[in-house]
Protein backbone atom coordinates (compact mmCIF):
# COMPACT_ATOMS: atom_id res chain seq x y z
CA UNK A 1 0.00 0.00 0.00
CA UNK A 2 1.20 3.54 -0.55
CA UNK A 3 1.78 5.23 2.80
CA UNK A 4 1.11 8.95 3.13
CA UNK A 5 3.07 10.35 6.09
CA UNK A 6 0.69 13.28 6.42
CA UNK A 7 -2.41 11.13 6.47
CA UNK A 8 -3.39 10.08 10.02
CA UNK A 9 -5.65 7.40 8.58
CA UNK A 10 -2.62 5.68 7.06
CA UNK A 11 -0.87 5.86 10.42
CA UNK A 12 -3.87 4.31 12.14
CA UNK A 13 -4.18 1.53 9.57
CA UNK A 14 -0.48 0.79 9.87
CA UNK A 15 -0.73 0.58 13.67
CA UNK A 16 -3.78 -1.66 13.43
CA UNK A 17 -2.00 -4.00 11.05
CA UNK A 18 1.26 -3.97 13.02
CA UNK A 19 -0.04 -4.20 16.57
CA UNK A 20 3.10 -5.94 17.79
CA UNK A 21 5.44 -3.25 16.44
CA UNK A 22 3.19 -0.52 17.83
CA UNK A 23 3.01 -2.13 21.24
CA UNK A 24 6.76 -2.64 21.43
CA UNK A 25 7.57 0.90 20.30
CA UNK A 26 5.27 2.22 22.99
CA UNK A 27 6.77 0.03 25.70
CA UNK A 28 10.30 0.99 24.63
CA UNK A 29 9.76 4.66 25.44
CA UNK A 30 7.32 3.94 28.26
CA UNK A 31 9.72 4.27 31.25
CA UNK A 32 10.45 7.86 30.19
CA UNK A 33 6.77 8.72 30.47
CA UNK A 34 6.42 7.33 34.01
CA UNK A 35 7.43 8.99 37.29
CA UNK A 36 9.80 6.17 38.31
CA UNK A 37 11.06 2.86 36.94
CA UNK A 38 9.68 0.58 39.63
CA UNK A 39 6.21 1.71 38.62
CA UNK A 40 6.84 1.18 34.90
CA UNK A 41 8.14 -2.30 35.69
CA UNK A 42 5.03 -3.08 37.71
CA UNK A 43 2.90 -1.90 34.81
CA UNK A 44 4.92 -4.07 32.45
CA UNK A 45 4.42 -7.09 34.71
CA UNK A 46 0.75 -6.54 35.46
CA UNK A 47 0.18 -5.73 31.80
CA UNK A 48 1.53 -9.17 30.95
CA UNK A 49 -0.60 -10.66 33.72
CA UNK A 50 -3.58 -8.94 32.13
CA UNK A 51 -2.69 -10.12 28.61
CA UNK A 52 -2.43 -13.70 29.84
CA UNK A 53 -5.72 -13.40 31.64
CA UNK A 54 -7.33 -11.70 28.65
CA UNK A 55 -6.51 -14.69 26.46
CA UNK A 56 -8.95 -16.67 28.59
CA UNK A 57 -11.41 -13.94 29.53
CA UNK A 58 -11.52 -11.62 26.54
CA UNK A 59 -10.92 -14.08 23.72
CA UNK A 60 -12.38 -17.35 25.00
CA UNK A 61 -15.05 -15.79 27.20
CA UNK A 62 -14.13 -17.66 30.38
CA UNK A 63 -14.13 -15.44 33.48
CA UNK A 64 -11.70 -16.96 35.97
CA UNK A 65 -11.43 -15.57 39.50
CA UNK A 66 -8.48 -17.85 40.24
CA UNK A 67 -5.68 -16.40 38.15
CA UNK A 68 -3.77 -15.19 41.16
CA UNK A 69 -2.91 -18.86 41.65
CA UNK A 70 -0.82 -18.92 38.47
CA UNK A 71 0.67 -15.48 39.05
CA UNK A 72 1.63 -16.48 42.59
CA UNK A 73 2.84 -19.98 41.78
CA UNK A 74 5.08 -18.46 39.12
CA UNK A 75 6.44 -15.96 41.63
CA UNK A 76 6.97 -18.50 44.39
CA UNK A 77 8.55 -21.21 42.27
CA UNK A 78 10.94 -18.70 40.71
CA UNK A 79 11.70 -17.33 44.15
CA UNK A 80 12.18 -20.75 45.72
CA UNK A 81 14.52 -21.86 42.95
CA UNK A 82 16.68 -18.84 43.63
CA UNK A 83 16.49 -18.77 47.43
CA UNK A 84 16.46 -22.47 48.32
CA UNK A 85 17.94 -24.15 45.25
CA UNK A 86 20.33 -21.36 44.29
CA UNK A 87 19.46 -21.69 40.62
CA UNK A 88 20.39 -19.01 38.06
CA UNK A 89 17.75 -16.47 37.00
CA UNK A 90 16.86 -18.18 33.71
CA UNK A 91 16.30 -21.54 35.37
CA UNK A 92 14.13 -19.80 37.96
CA UNK A 93 11.97 -18.24 35.27
CA UNK A 94 11.63 -21.55 33.44
CA UNK A 95 10.70 -23.33 36.65
CA UNK A 96 8.08 -20.74 37.52
CA UNK A 97 6.43 -20.82 34.11
CA UNK A 98 6.33 -24.62 33.90
CA UNK A 99 4.96 -24.92 37.44
CA UNK A 100 2.18 -22.42 36.84
CA UNK A 101 1.27 -24.11 33.56
CA UNK A 102 0.98 -27.43 35.38
CA UNK A 103 -1.18 -25.93 38.10
CA UNK A 104 -3.20 -24.41 35.26
CA UNK A 105 -3.63 -27.85 33.74
CA UNK A 106 -4.91 -29.25 37.02
CA UNK A 107 -7.27 -26.39 37.91
CA UNK A 108 -8.40 -26.06 34.31
CA UNK A 109 -9.17 -29.76 34.08
CA UNK A 110 -11.41 -29.53 37.14
CA UNK A 111 -13.03 -26.20 36.28
CA UNK A 112 -13.81 -26.58 32.58
CA UNK A 113 -16.90 -28.66 33.17
CA UNK A 114 -18.74 -25.87 34.98
CA UNK A 115 -20.02 -22.77 33.22
CA UNK A 116 -20.59 -19.05 33.70
CA UNK A 117 -20.41 -17.74 37.23
CA UNK A 118 -19.91 -21.27 38.53
CA UNK A 119 -16.75 -21.60 36.48
CA UNK A 120 -15.57 -18.36 38.07
CA UNK A 121 -16.28 -19.65 41.54
CA UNK A 122 -14.68 -23.07 41.01
CA UNK A 123 -11.50 -21.37 39.85
CA UNK A 124 -11.73 -19.05 42.86
CA UNK A 125 -12.12 -21.94 45.28
CA UNK A 126 -9.29 -23.98 43.82
CA UNK A 127 -7.05 -20.90 43.79
CA UNK A 128 -7.81 -20.32 47.48
CA UNK A 129 -6.69 -23.88 48.16
CA UNK A 130 -3.41 -23.14 46.39
CA UNK A 131 -3.14 -20.00 48.52
CA UNK A 132 -3.40 -22.02 51.74
CA UNK A 133 -0.97 -24.66 50.58
CA UNK A 134 1.67 -21.98 50.06
CA UNK A 135 0.61 -20.15 53.21
CA UNK A 136 1.15 -23.23 55.33
CA UNK A 137 4.39 -24.34 53.64
CA UNK A 138 6.18 -21.75 55.77
CA UNK A 139 9.66 -23.25 55.63
CA UNK A 140 9.59 -22.97 51.83
CA UNK A 141 7.48 -19.88 51.23
CA UNK A 142 7.91 -17.85 54.42
CA UNK A 143 4.14 -18.02 54.95
CA UNK A 144 2.48 -14.74 55.82
CA UNK A 145 5.87 -13.02 55.99
CA UNK A 146 6.43 -13.81 52.34
CA UNK A 147 9.56 -15.14 50.65
CA UNK A 148 12.59 -12.85 50.95
CA UNK A 149 16.02 -12.80 49.38
CA UNK A 150 15.18 -13.44 45.73
CA UNK A 151 18.37 -11.57 44.91
CA UNK A 152 19.47 -11.36 41.29
CA UNK A 153 22.19 -8.73 40.99
CA UNK A 154 23.33 -9.36 37.45
CA UNK A 155 21.78 -10.98 34.40
CA UNK A 156 24.51 -13.13 32.85
CA UNK A 157 23.99 -14.59 29.40
CA UNK A 158 26.54 -15.73 26.83
CA UNK A 159 29.34 -13.79 28.44
CA UNK A 160 27.21 -10.69 28.75
CA UNK A 161 26.55 -9.34 32.22
CA UNK A 162 23.90 -6.72 32.91
CA UNK A 163 23.62 -4.89 36.23
CA UNK A 164 20.09 -5.89 37.29
CA UNK A 165 20.18 -3.52 40.26
CA UNK A 166 20.01 -0.57 37.89
CA UNK A 167 16.30 0.17 37.51
CA UNK A 168 16.42 1.07 33.83
CA UNK A 169 18.37 -2.08 32.94
CA UNK A 170 15.86 -4.03 34.97
CA UNK A 171 13.04 -2.52 32.95
CA UNK A 172 14.55 -3.47 29.62
CA UNK A 173 15.53 -6.97 30.70
CA UNK A 174 11.95 -7.61 31.81
CA UNK A 175 10.73 -5.84 28.68
CA UNK A 176 12.48 -8.48 26.58
CA UNK A 177 10.49 -11.27 28.23
CA UNK A 178 7.25 -9.34 27.97
CA UNK A 179 7.95 -8.65 24.30
CA UNK A 180 8.52 -12.36 23.65
CA UNK A 181 5.29 -13.20 25.47
CA UNK A 182 3.36 -10.58 23.50
CA UNK A 183 4.78 -11.95 20.25
CA UNK A 184 3.65 -15.43 21.26
CA UNK A 185 0.14 -14.23 22.15
CA UNK A 186 -0.09 -12.28 18.91
CA UNK A 187 0.78 -15.39 16.94
CA UNK A 188 -1.73 -17.52 18.81
CA UNK A 189 -4.45 -14.97 18.17
CA UNK A 190 -3.57 -14.88 14.47
CA UNK A 191 -3.48 -18.65 14.22
CA UNK A 192 -6.41 -20.85 13.19
CA UNK A 193 -6.69 -21.82 16.86
CA UNK A 194 -7.15 -18.14 17.68
CA UNK A 195 -10.22 -18.22 15.46
CA UNK A 196 -11.48 -21.36 17.21
CA UNK A 197 -11.38 -19.84 20.69
CA UNK A 198 -13.21 -16.74 19.52
CA UNK A 199 -15.79 -19.04 17.95
CA UNK A 200 -16.14 -20.80 21.31
CA UNK A 201 -16.63 -17.45 23.02
CA UNK A 202 -19.33 -16.56 20.51
CA UNK A 203 -21.22 -19.85 20.51
CA UNK A 204 -20.02 -23.03 22.17
CA UNK A 205 -22.77 -25.22 20.73
CA UNK A 206 -22.02 -24.08 17.21
CA UNK A 207 -18.30 -24.56 17.62
CA UNK A 208 -18.94 -28.14 18.69
CA UNK A 209 -21.28 -28.67 15.75
CA UNK A 210 -18.43 -27.56 13.50
CA UNK A 211 -16.45 -30.45 14.93
CA UNK A 212 -14.28 -28.70 17.49
CA UNK A 213 -13.63 -30.42 20.82
CA UNK A 214 -14.63 -27.44 22.94
CA UNK A 215 -13.43 -28.88 26.26
CA UNK A 216 -9.94 -29.57 24.94
CA UNK A 217 -9.66 -26.17 23.29
CA UNK A 218 -10.72 -24.48 26.53
CA UNK A 219 -8.22 -26.50 28.52
CA UNK A 220 -5.41 -25.59 26.12
CA UNK A 221 -6.19 -21.87 26.39
CA UNK A 222 -6.44 -22.21 30.14
CA UNK A 223 -2.95 -23.69 30.32
CA UNK A 224 -1.49 -21.08 27.95
CA UNK A 225 -3.08 -18.32 29.96
CA UNK A 226 -1.79 -19.83 33.20
CA UNK A 227 1.72 -20.06 31.78
CA UNK A 228 1.70 -16.41 30.70
CA UNK A 229 0.43 -15.25 34.08
CA UNK A 230 3.08 -17.46 35.65
CA UNK A 231 5.74 -15.69 33.60
CA UNK A 232 4.45 -12.37 34.85
CA UNK A 233 4.75 -13.77 38.36
CA UNK A 234 8.34 -14.91 37.94
CA UNK A 235 9.31 -11.49 36.62
CA UNK A 236 7.70 -9.86 39.62
CA UNK A 237 9.70 -12.04 41.99
CA UNK A 238 12.92 -10.95 40.27
CA UNK A 239 11.78 -7.32 40.23
CA UNK A 240 10.83 -6.98 43.91
CA UNK A 241 13.33 -9.56 45.25
CA UNK A 242 10.48 -10.75 47.47
CA UNK A 243 7.31 -12.79 46.97
CA UNK A 244 4.38 -11.56 49.06
CA UNK A 245 1.68 -14.09 49.94
CA UNK A 246 -0.83 -11.53 48.67
CA UNK A 247 0.22 -12.43 45.14
CA UNK A 248 -1.83 -15.62 45.56
CA UNK A 249 -4.82 -13.88 47.11
CA UNK A 250 -8.14 -13.64 45.27
CA UNK A 251 -7.93 -9.85 45.42
CA UNK A 252 -4.99 -10.22 43.01
CA UNK A 253 -7.26 -12.13 40.62
CA UNK A 254 -9.82 -9.38 41.03
CA UNK A 255 -7.19 -6.83 40.06
CA UNK A 256 -6.49 -8.70 36.81
CA UNK A 257 -10.20 -8.71 35.96
CA UNK A 258 -10.46 -5.00 36.67
CA UNK A 259 -7.42 -4.12 34.58
CA UNK A 260 -8.75 -6.17 31.67
CA UNK A 261 -12.19 -4.60 31.77
CA UNK A 262 -10.74 -1.14 32.26
CA UNK A 263 -8.40 -1.47 29.29
CA UNK A 264 -10.84 -3.35 27.10
CA UNK A 265 -11.30 -7.10 27.19
CA UNK A 266 -10.73 -8.97 23.96
CA UNK A 267 -8.36 -6.31 22.65
CA UNK A 268 -4.69 -7.07 22.19
CA UNK A 269 -3.25 -4.04 23.97
CA UNK A 270 -6.19 -3.28 26.27
CA UNK A 271 -4.89 -5.10 29.35
CA UNK A 272 -1.64 -3.12 29.18
CA UNK A 273 -3.50 0.14 29.03
CA UNK A 274 -5.73 -1.07 31.83
CA UNK A 275 -2.74 -1.94 33.99
CA UNK A 276 -1.06 1.36 33.17
CA UNK A 277 -4.11 3.48 33.98
CA UNK A 278 -4.97 1.47 37.08
CA UNK A 279 -1.50 1.47 38.62
CA UNK A 280 -0.59 5.00 37.55
CA UNK A 281 -3.80 6.49 38.93
CA UNK A 282 -3.40 4.54 42.15
CA UNK A 283 0.22 5.65 42.46
CA UNK A 284 -0.44 9.34 41.81
CA UNK A 285 -3.67 9.62 43.78
CA UNK A 286 -2.19 7.78 46.76
CA UNK A 287 0.37 10.57 47.07
CA UNK A 288 -2.27 13.28 46.89
CA UNK A 289 -4.91 12.02 49.28
CA UNK A 290 -5.44 9.34 51.85
CA UNK A 291 -8.82 8.69 50.24
CA UNK A 292 -7.32 7.28 47.05
CA UNK A 293 -9.69 4.32 47.09
CA UNK A 294 -12.69 6.57 46.76
CA UNK A 295 -11.21 8.57 43.90
CA UNK A 296 -10.11 5.43 42.06
CA UNK A 297 -13.58 3.99 42.64
CA UNK A 298 -15.27 7.03 41.10
CA UNK A 299 -12.95 6.96 38.09
CA UNK A 300 -13.76 3.26 37.70
CA UNK A 301 -17.47 3.92 37.63
CA UNK A 302 -17.07 6.73 35.13
CA UNK A 303 -15.08 4.46 32.82
CA UNK A 304 -17.66 1.70 33.09
CA UNK A 305 -20.52 4.07 32.40
CA UNK A 306 -18.94 6.02 29.56
CA UNK A 307 -16.33 3.68 28.06
CA UNK A 308 -18.44 0.54 27.57
CA UNK A 309 -15.74 -1.25 25.60
CA UNK A 310 -12.96 -0.31 27.97
CA UNK A 311 -10.46 2.43 27.18
CA UNK A 312 -8.63 0.75 24.32
CA UNK A 313 -11.77 -0.93 23.01
CA UNK A 314 -13.53 2.41 22.85
CA UNK A 315 -10.58 4.11 21.18
CA UNK A 316 -10.40 1.40 18.51
CA UNK A 317 -14.16 1.57 18.00
CA UNK A 318 -14.07 5.36 17.57
CA UNK A 319 -11.14 5.07 15.15
CA UNK A 320 -12.94 2.46 13.03
CA UNK A 321 -16.01 4.67 12.78
CA UNK A 322 -13.84 7.66 11.92
CA UNK A 323 -12.00 5.62 9.29
CA UNK A 324 -15.25 4.35 7.81
CA UNK A 325 -16.50 7.93 7.58
CA UNK A 326 -13.30 9.03 5.84
CA UNK A 327 -13.55 6.20 3.37
CA UNK A 328 -17.20 6.98 2.85
CA UNK A 329 -16.26 10.58 2.13
CA UNK A 330 -13.42 9.59 -0.19
Amino acid at each position, binding site marked *: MNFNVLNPADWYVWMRNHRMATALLFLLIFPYLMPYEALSINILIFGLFGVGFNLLFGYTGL*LSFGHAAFFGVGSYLAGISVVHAGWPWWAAIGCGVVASALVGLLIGY*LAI*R*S*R*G*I*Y*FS*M*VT*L*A*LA*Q*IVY*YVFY*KAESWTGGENGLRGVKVETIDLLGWSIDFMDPLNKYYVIFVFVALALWFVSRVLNSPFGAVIEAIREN*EKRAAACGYDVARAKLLVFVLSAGLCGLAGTLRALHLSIVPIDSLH*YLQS*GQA*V*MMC*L*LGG*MGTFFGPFLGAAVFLYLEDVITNLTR*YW*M*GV*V*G*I*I*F*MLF*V*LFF*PKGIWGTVLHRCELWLARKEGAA
Partner: protein
Amino acid sequence: MLDISPQLFALQLMTGFALGAVYALLAIGLSLIFGMLTVVNFAHGAFFMVGAFLGVYSLGLTGNFWFSLLLVPLMTGAIGLVCEKFLVRPLYGRGIDYPLLLTFGLSYVMVDVVRFTFGIEGIPSSTPESLRGAVFLGFGHFPLYRLFLILATALIVIALWLFIEKTRYGLIIRAGSRDPEICKVLGIDISRVWLLVFGIGTAIAGLSGMLASPTRAVNPEMGIPILAESFVVTVVGGMGSLPGAVLAGLLVGVVFAMTSLIAPEFAELSIFVLMALVLLWRPQGFFGKAGLMS
Protein backbone atom coordinates in the same frame (compact mmCIF):
# COMPACT_ATOMS: atom_id res chain seq x y z
CA MET B 1 -6.75 -36.41 69.88
CA LEU B 2 -9.21 -34.04 71.53
CA ASP B 3 -12.37 -35.35 73.16
CA ILE B 4 -15.54 -33.53 72.18
CA SER B 5 -18.35 -33.79 74.71
CA PRO B 6 -21.91 -33.76 73.35
CA GLN B 7 -22.51 -30.47 75.16
CA LEU B 8 -19.55 -28.88 73.41
CA PHE B 9 -20.74 -30.30 70.11
CA ALA B 10 -24.21 -28.86 70.62
CA LEU B 11 -22.82 -25.44 71.56
CA GLN B 12 -20.58 -25.56 68.51
CA LEU B 13 -23.60 -26.34 66.37
CA MET B 14 -25.43 -23.32 67.78
CA THR B 15 -22.50 -21.01 67.11
CA GLY B 16 -22.44 -22.45 63.62
CA PHE B 17 -26.08 -21.52 63.11
CA ALA B 18 -25.47 -18.02 64.46
CA LEU B 19 -22.64 -17.59 61.97
CA GLY B 20 -24.70 -19.13 59.22
CA ALA B 21 -27.56 -16.73 59.94
CA VAL B 22 -25.46 -13.75 58.87
CA TYR B 23 -24.15 -15.60 55.81
CA ALA B 24 -27.66 -16.61 54.84
CA LEU B 25 -28.96 -13.03 55.06
CA LEU B 26 -26.16 -11.70 52.89
CA ALA B 27 -26.50 -14.56 50.44
CA ILE B 28 -30.26 -13.97 50.10
CA GLY B 29 -29.56 -10.41 49.03
CA LEU B 30 -26.87 -11.43 46.57
CA SER B 31 -28.99 -14.24 45.22
CA LEU B 32 -32.07 -12.07 44.77
CA ILE B 33 -30.14 -9.41 42.90
CA PHE B 34 -28.32 -11.93 40.78
CA GLY B 35 -31.30 -14.12 40.02
CA MET B 36 -33.37 -11.15 38.98
CA LEU B 37 -30.92 -8.73 37.37
CA THR B 38 -27.96 -11.07 36.74
CA VAL B 39 -25.87 -8.47 38.52
CA VAL B 40 -23.02 -9.81 40.63
CA ASN B 41 -23.08 -7.16 43.33
CA PHE B 42 -19.52 -6.60 44.49
CA ALA B 43 -20.70 -3.75 46.69
CA HIS B 44 -22.78 -6.09 48.84
CA GLY B 45 -20.11 -6.24 51.51
CA ALA B 46 -19.97 -2.44 51.52
CA PHE B 47 -23.73 -2.27 52.14
CA PHE B 48 -23.24 -4.71 55.01
CA MET B 49 -20.56 -2.41 56.43
CA VAL B 50 -22.62 0.74 55.95
CA GLY B 51 -25.51 -1.01 57.69
CA ALA B 52 -23.29 -1.76 60.66
CA PHE B 53 -22.09 1.85 60.92
CA LEU B 54 -25.55 3.34 60.55
CA GLY B 55 -26.80 0.84 63.11
CA VAL B 56 -24.23 1.75 65.74
CA TYR B 57 -24.65 5.43 64.96
CA SER B 58 -28.44 5.54 65.20
CA LEU B 59 -28.25 3.34 68.29
CA GLY B 60 -25.99 5.97 69.79
CA LEU B 61 -28.40 8.76 68.85
CA THR B 62 -31.75 7.19 69.63
CA GLY B 63 -30.61 4.62 72.16
CA ASN B 64 -33.38 2.42 70.81
CA PHE B 65 -32.16 -0.82 69.24
CA TRP B 66 -35.52 -1.83 67.79
CA PHE B 67 -36.07 1.53 66.17
CA SER B 68 -32.62 1.37 64.57
CA LEU B 69 -33.39 -2.16 63.43
CA LEU B 70 -36.26 -0.65 61.47
CA LEU B 71 -34.43 2.47 60.33
CA VAL B 72 -31.18 0.97 59.02
CA PRO B 73 -32.58 -1.33 56.32
CA LEU B 74 -34.71 1.56 55.08
CA MET B 75 -31.62 3.75 54.77
CA THR B 76 -29.37 1.19 53.10
CA GLY B 77 -32.28 0.17 50.91
CA ALA B 78 -32.67 3.79 49.87
CA ILE B 79 -28.98 4.01 49.02
CA GLY B 80 -29.45 0.83 47.02
CA LEU B 81 -32.37 2.31 45.09
CA VAL B 82 -30.34 5.36 44.15
CA CYS B 83 -27.41 3.22 43.04
CA GLU B 84 -29.64 1.00 40.91
CA LYS B 85 -31.40 3.90 39.25
CA PHE B 86 -28.35 5.97 38.36
CA LEU B 87 -25.45 3.53 38.22
CA VAL B 88 -26.56 -0.05 37.56
CA ARG B 89 -29.53 0.58 35.28
CA PRO B 90 -27.52 2.04 32.39
CA LEU B 91 -25.57 -1.22 32.27
CA TYR B 92 -28.41 -3.70 31.76
CA GLY B 93 -27.88 -5.85 28.70
CA ARG B 94 -24.13 -5.39 28.80
CA GLY B 95 -23.42 -8.77 30.36
CA ILE B 96 -22.25 -9.41 33.90
CA ASP B 97 -18.80 -7.89 33.55
CA TYR B 98 -19.75 -4.24 33.64
CA PRO B 99 -22.12 -4.25 36.63
CA LEU B 100 -19.42 -6.27 38.37
CA LEU B 101 -16.77 -3.66 37.67
CA LEU B 102 -19.12 -0.84 38.56
CA THR B 103 -20.19 -2.29 41.90
CA PHE B 104 -16.53 -2.96 42.64
CA GLY B 105 -15.81 0.72 42.14
CA LEU B 106 -18.89 1.58 44.15
CA SER B 107 -17.65 -0.48 47.08
CA TYR B 108 -14.36 1.48 47.04
CA VAL B 109 -16.30 4.72 47.19
CA MET B 110 -18.60 3.58 49.98
CA VAL B 111 -15.68 2.41 52.10
CA ASP B 112 -13.92 5.76 51.76
CA VAL B 113 -17.06 7.77 52.39
CA VAL B 114 -17.45 5.87 55.67
CA ARG B 115 -13.76 6.39 56.48
CA PHE B 116 -14.23 10.07 55.91
CA THR B 117 -17.39 10.45 57.99
CA PHE B 118 -16.83 7.98 60.84
CA GLY B 119 -13.04 7.93 60.92
CA ILE B 120 -10.70 5.17 59.86
CA GLU B 121 -10.24 3.23 63.07
CA GLY B 122 -13.88 2.21 63.30
CA ILE B 123 -16.35 2.85 66.13
CA PRO B 124 -17.10 0.91 69.33
CA SER B 125 -20.23 -1.20 69.20
CA SER B 126 -21.94 -2.93 72.08
CA THR B 127 -24.83 -5.33 72.62
CA PRO B 128 -28.11 -3.64 73.62
CA GLU B 129 -28.83 -4.07 77.37
CA SER B 130 -31.99 -6.07 76.75
CA LEU B 131 -30.04 -8.72 74.84
CA ARG B 132 -26.90 -9.03 76.95
CA GLY B 133 -25.77 -12.03 78.93
CA ALA B 134 -26.07 -15.73 78.23
CA VAL B 135 -28.94 -18.19 78.43
CA PHE B 136 -28.73 -21.82 79.50
CA LEU B 137 -29.86 -24.10 76.69
CA GLY B 138 -29.71 -27.40 78.58
CA PHE B 139 -26.31 -28.24 77.15
CA GLY B 140 -24.49 -25.05 78.01
CA HIS B 141 -24.57 -21.27 78.18
CA PHE B 142 -25.06 -19.44 74.89
CA PRO B 143 -24.96 -15.67 74.35
CA LEU B 144 -28.52 -14.34 74.29
CA TYR B 145 -27.73 -11.99 71.43
CA ARG B 146 -26.60 -14.76 69.12
CA LEU B 147 -29.78 -16.64 69.87
CA PHE B 148 -31.67 -13.50 68.92
CA LEU B 149 -29.59 -13.35 65.74
CA ILE B 150 -30.81 -16.80 64.70
CA LEU B 151 -34.45 -15.96 65.45
CA ALA B 152 -34.28 -12.59 63.70
CA THR B 153 -32.90 -14.27 60.60
CA ALA B 154 -35.67 -16.84 60.67
CA LEU B 155 -38.29 -14.06 60.89
CA ILE B 156 -36.73 -12.10 58.02
CA VAL B 157 -36.60 -15.21 55.85
CA ILE B 158 -40.25 -16.00 56.58
CA ALA B 159 -41.31 -12.43 55.85
CA LEU B 160 -39.41 -12.50 52.56
CA TRP B 161 -40.92 -15.87 51.70
CA LEU B 162 -44.42 -14.52 52.26
CA PHE B 163 -43.64 -11.48 50.12
CA ILE B 164 -42.40 -13.65 47.29
CA GLU B 165 -45.15 -16.24 47.51
CA LYS B 166 -48.10 -13.95 48.08
CA THR B 167 -47.52 -10.79 46.02
CA ARG B 168 -47.51 -10.29 42.28
CA TYR B 169 -44.04 -8.75 42.49
CA GLY B 170 -43.06 -11.94 44.24
CA LEU B 171 -44.50 -13.86 41.32
CA ILE B 172 -42.06 -12.20 38.96
CA ILE B 173 -39.18 -12.61 41.30
CA ARG B 174 -40.14 -16.28 41.47
CA ALA B 175 -40.17 -16.41 37.72
CA GLY B 176 -36.68 -15.12 38.41
CA SER B 177 -36.08 -14.15 34.82
CA ARG B 178 -35.55 -10.88 32.98
CA ASP B 179 -37.97 -12.07 30.33
CA PRO B 180 -40.13 -9.01 29.68
CA GLU B 181 -42.87 -11.25 28.20
CA ILE B 182 -44.01 -12.52 31.59
CA CYS B 183 -44.23 -8.99 32.86
CA LYS B 184 -46.22 -7.80 29.84
CA VAL B 185 -48.65 -10.59 30.61
CA LEU B 186 -48.85 -9.47 34.21
CA GLY B 187 -48.91 -5.84 33.18
CA ILE B 188 -45.96 -4.92 35.37
CA ASP B 189 -43.22 -2.43 34.56
CA ILE B 190 -40.16 -4.70 34.82
CA SER B 191 -37.73 -1.85 35.52
CA ARG B 192 -39.68 -1.05 38.67
CA VAL B 193 -39.33 -4.65 39.77
CA TRP B 194 -35.56 -4.54 39.25
CA LEU B 195 -35.38 -1.34 41.25
CA LEU B 196 -37.39 -2.96 44.01
CA VAL B 197 -35.29 -6.11 44.03
CA PHE B 198 -32.03 -4.20 44.24
CA GLY B 199 -33.53 -2.13 47.05
CA ILE B 200 -34.64 -5.22 48.98
CA GLY B 201 -31.28 -6.92 48.47
CA THR B 202 -29.28 -3.97 49.75
CA ALA B 203 -31.77 -3.39 52.58
CA ILE B 204 -31.23 -6.95 53.78
CA ALA B 205 -27.47 -6.50 53.45
CA GLY B 206 -27.66 -3.39 55.62
CA LEU B 207 -29.91 -5.13 58.09
CA SER B 208 -27.51 -8.05 58.44
CA GLY B 209 -24.69 -5.57 59.00
CA MET B 210 -26.71 -3.91 61.73
CA LEU B 211 -27.51 -7.28 63.28
CA ALA B 212 -23.88 -8.39 63.14
CA SER B 213 -22.47 -5.11 64.49
CA PRO B 214 -22.72 -5.97 68.22
CA THR B 215 -20.85 -9.23 67.67
CA ARG B 216 -17.80 -7.87 65.92
CA ALA B 217 -15.55 -4.85 65.44
CA VAL B 218 -17.21 -2.20 63.29
CA ASN B 219 -14.68 -0.74 60.85
CA PRO B 220 -14.69 0.41 57.21
CA GLU B 221 -13.03 -2.78 55.96
CA MET B 222 -15.38 -5.20 57.72
CA GLY B 223 -17.31 -5.86 54.51
CA ILE B 224 -14.42 -7.14 52.43
CA PRO B 225 -13.81 -10.63 53.87
CA ILE B 226 -17.51 -11.31 54.42
CA LEU B 227 -18.20 -10.55 50.76
CA ALA B 228 -16.06 -13.45 49.56
CA GLU B 229 -17.66 -15.76 52.10
CA SER B 230 -21.20 -14.80 51.16
CA PHE B 231 -20.35 -15.34 47.49
CA VAL B 232 -19.28 -18.85 48.42
CA VAL B 233 -22.60 -19.34 50.19
CA THR B 234 -24.59 -17.97 47.26
CA VAL B 235 -22.86 -20.22 44.77
CA VAL B 236 -23.03 -23.33 46.94
CA GLY B 237 -26.77 -22.73 47.34
CA GLY B 238 -27.14 -22.01 43.67
CA MET B 239 -27.21 -18.50 42.22
CA GLY B 240 -30.70 -17.02 42.29
CA SER B 241 -32.15 -19.59 44.67
CA LEU B 242 -33.41 -18.31 48.02
CA PRO B 243 -33.87 -21.68 49.74
CA GLY B 244 -30.42 -22.49 48.44
CA ALA B 245 -29.00 -19.34 50.01
CA VAL B 246 -30.52 -20.13 53.41
CA LEU B 247 -29.54 -23.80 53.37
CA ALA B 248 -25.99 -23.08 52.17
CA GLY B 249 -25.65 -20.25 54.67
CA LEU B 250 -26.39 -22.52 57.60
CA LEU B 251 -24.28 -25.31 56.11
CA VAL B 252 -21.27 -23.03 55.66
CA GLY B 253 -21.72 -21.67 59.17
CA VAL B 254 -21.77 -25.17 60.65
CA VAL B 255 -18.85 -26.39 58.54
CA PHE B 256 -16.85 -23.36 59.67
CA ALA B 257 -17.75 -23.96 63.31
CA MET B 258 -16.90 -27.65 63.19
CA THR B 259 -13.58 -27.12 61.46
CA SER B 260 -12.81 -24.49 64.08
CA LEU B 261 -13.25 -27.22 66.65
CA ILE B 262 -11.21 -29.92 64.96
CA ALA B 263 -8.60 -28.05 62.89
CA PRO B 264 -8.92 -24.33 63.75
CA GLU B 265 -6.28 -23.03 61.36
CA PHE B 266 -8.17 -24.48 58.41
CA ALA B 267 -11.51 -22.94 59.39
CA GLU B 268 -11.38 -20.35 56.63
CA LEU B 269 -10.09 -22.78 54.01
CA SER B 270 -12.83 -25.27 54.85
CA ILE B 271 -15.59 -23.20 53.29
CA PHE B 272 -13.68 -22.89 50.03
CA VAL B 273 -13.00 -26.62 50.00
CA LEU B 274 -16.71 -27.11 50.60
CA MET B 275 -17.50 -24.92 47.62
CA ALA B 276 -15.00 -26.72 45.40
CA LEU B 277 -16.45 -30.10 46.34
CA VAL B 278 -20.06 -29.01 45.91
CA LEU B 279 -19.40 -27.45 42.51
CA LEU B 280 -17.37 -30.39 41.24
CA TRP B 281 -20.17 -32.70 42.31
CA ARG B 282 -22.96 -30.42 41.15
CA PRO B 283 -21.71 -27.63 38.84
CA GLN B 284 -24.68 -25.34 39.48
CA GLY B 285 -24.83 -25.58 43.27
CA PHE B 286 -27.72 -27.06 45.25
CA PHE B 287 -30.69 -25.35 43.62
CA GLY B 288 -29.03 -23.35 40.84
CA LYS B 289 -30.13 -23.29 37.22
CA ALA B 290 -27.47 -24.83 34.99
CA GLY B 291 -25.46 -22.72 32.59
CA LEU B 292 -26.25 -19.32 34.06
CA MET B 293 -24.49 -16.63 32.04
CA SER B 294 -22.74 -19.19 29.90
